[in-house]
């Protein structure tokens, strides 16, 4: 059926470029993209969905090539081959723990591509069909679309580059706070919007290029004050922007596939940002304003709690405790990703299951550095996805669990979120690990509280045993302890 559509589109192209079959082909591509996302409603249908996305992309590209007098086909094929080969190799080689920075890097490419397409449309408006036949100038509406598209694309690019550098560790995750940054940011944004409005009356190149340059700068300024743990929101937000940039270009070209995709990706990123913010009980604006974690470290509960007594255990103690348990709930966090402990953790889970222990995994929505980060890592380690539960689905079960095994998570288990109104994480939904009969808390050291810089009451409870070591080494020790 797909071939028929392409053939129809091709046949249509021989007549006029605006043949209904061409529009139809782009519509089919758009619908296939919707189905690609629909497939992700369950792991079982997800791969079929991904194939539909590929088919949609193939249709969109084929239709475009068929309907234009392509004078540079070899160069275009070469460009696709080069880009495709690079993308394919990266996708094969990338470690699953590096997925957040990979996604950020990919976002930056979409943003830059949008800027380049916008610039090309500005330089050669005739090719894009946005010239006014009477005046020989670009349509007023197209100028707004071009301005917005380039601005959003440039913000996506420079913002994603900063997000990539922070996630990849090339740049400190600490917020970088410029004085009067809100004033600078608002001023720059106002200047961009003002210039786009002025662009409607005057299509001088300097306006176009100034908008582009200012947008690169604002993208950079917007992300530098945002700390590492707020990156899930930032990555989702940039995901959303890359969609809006594609949609703006779709308006310029009057292309259904681009508009539908832009709207899908735009809302997808926006919803993910919302879910992340809700899971931290923070407003989107407070995340965007940045600086979280910078002030918190110097104030709050940290100082008075340094010498409180806590129980420290060994791997053998932990192995013994879990062997005796009926049920164990494992709570993974970013620390598990950092030390790559997921494979050892699955081995531990398998050994416990052999002993007849019920093993489940509990995942907080903001665990890790991007939405769903922990799920992918556990899936990589071959943990079956029906043993992995979301916060709302498992939180009631901690009361019946014998052991809560917290590995590399901290703030998402901190009861201060419920009890301490002065805490920076107050109001954040948490995993109630404290309700379990015993808590095993794997942590590198007692210093260095969680990202929010708040001390965690759970460390000092009578039923908590602190396992102070690198997460992976500790789990491997426990596995040894369980094996004999």
């Amino acid at each position: 059926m797909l071939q028929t559509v392409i053939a129809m589109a091709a046949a249509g192209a021989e007549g006029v470029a605006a043949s209904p079959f061409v529009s139809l082909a782009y519509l089919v591509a758009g619908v296939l993209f919707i189905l690609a996302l629909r497939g992700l409603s369950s792991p079982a249908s997800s791969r079929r969905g991904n194939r539909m996305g590929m088919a949609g992309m193939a249709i969109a590209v084929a239709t475009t090539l068929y309907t234009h007098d392509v004078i540079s086909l070899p160069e275009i094929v070469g460009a696709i081959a080069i880009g495709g080969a690079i993308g394919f190799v990266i996708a094969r080689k990338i470690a699953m723990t590096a997925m957040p920075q990979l996604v950020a890097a990919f976002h930056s490419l979409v943003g830059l591509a949008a800027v380049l397409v916008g610039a090309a449309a500005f330089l050669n408006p005739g090719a894009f069909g946005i010239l006014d036949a009477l005046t020989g100038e670009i349509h007023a509406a197209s100028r707004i679309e071009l301005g917005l598209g380039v601005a959003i694309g440039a913000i996506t690019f420079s913002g994603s580059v900063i997000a990539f550098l922070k996630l990849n560790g090339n740049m400190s995750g600490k917020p970088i706070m410029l004085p009067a940054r809100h004033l600078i940011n608002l001023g720059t944004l106002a200047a961009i919007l003002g210039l786009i409005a002025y662009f409607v009356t005057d299509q001088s190149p300097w306006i176009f290029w100034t908008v582009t340059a200012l947008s690169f700068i604002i993208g950079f300024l917007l992300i530098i004050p945002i700390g590492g743990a707020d990156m899930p929101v930032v990555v989702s937000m940039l995901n959303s922007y890359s969609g809006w940039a594609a949609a703006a270009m779709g308006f310029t070209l009057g292309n259904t596939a681009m508009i539908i995709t832009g709207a899908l990706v735009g809302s997808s990123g926006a919803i993910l940002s919302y879910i992340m913010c809700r899971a931290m009980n923070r407003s989107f604006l407070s995340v965007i304003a940045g600086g979280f974690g910078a002030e918190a470290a110097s104030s709050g509960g940290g100082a008075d709690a340094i010498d409180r007594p806590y129980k420290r255990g060994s791997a053998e103690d932990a192995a013994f405790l879990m062997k005796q348990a009926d049920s164990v709930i494992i709570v993974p966090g970013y620390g598990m990703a950092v030390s790559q402990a997921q494979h050892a953790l699955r081995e531990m889970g398998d050994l416990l299951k052999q002993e007849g222990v019920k093993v489940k995994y509990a995942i907080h929505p903001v665990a890790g550095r991007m939405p769903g980060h922990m799920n992918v890592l556990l899936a990589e380690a071959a943990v079956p996805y029906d043993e992995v539960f979301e916060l709302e689905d498992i939180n009631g079960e901690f009361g019946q669990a014998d052991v809560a095994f917290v590995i590399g998570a901290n703030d998402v288990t901190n009861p201060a979120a419920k009890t301490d109104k002065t805490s920076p994480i107050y109001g954040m939904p948490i995993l109630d690990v404290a309700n379990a009969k015993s808590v095993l808390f794997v942590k590198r050291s007692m210093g260095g509280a969680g990202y929010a810089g708040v001390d965690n009451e759970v460390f000092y409870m009578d039923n908590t045993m602190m396992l102070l070591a690198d997460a992976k080494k500790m789990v491997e020790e426990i596995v040894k302890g369980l094996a004999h």
Partner: protein
Amino acid sequence: MDFISILSIFVLACFVGYYVVWSVTPALHTPLMAVTNAISSVIIVGALVASAEAGSAAAKYLGLLAVVLASVNIFGGFAVTERMLAMYKKKERK
């Protein structure tokens, strides 16, 4: 297409996006980001137009560069999504 038809498609697609994305299971949020990344590279359509049409050499080379970038994303995005999705397995029934 006139502006209002395009706007209608856009607004309706936003609603479709809203409902479709809420139905995505949280366990697949990372693949969701990877695949939305791949499909937002449909911007390659604009890049192809720029590199295919005569008129401006500068526009053509900007277009070709955009084709390279978007292709990295398309192939990389779909391939990495495929790789991730292949890892999600159900419990083996014994």
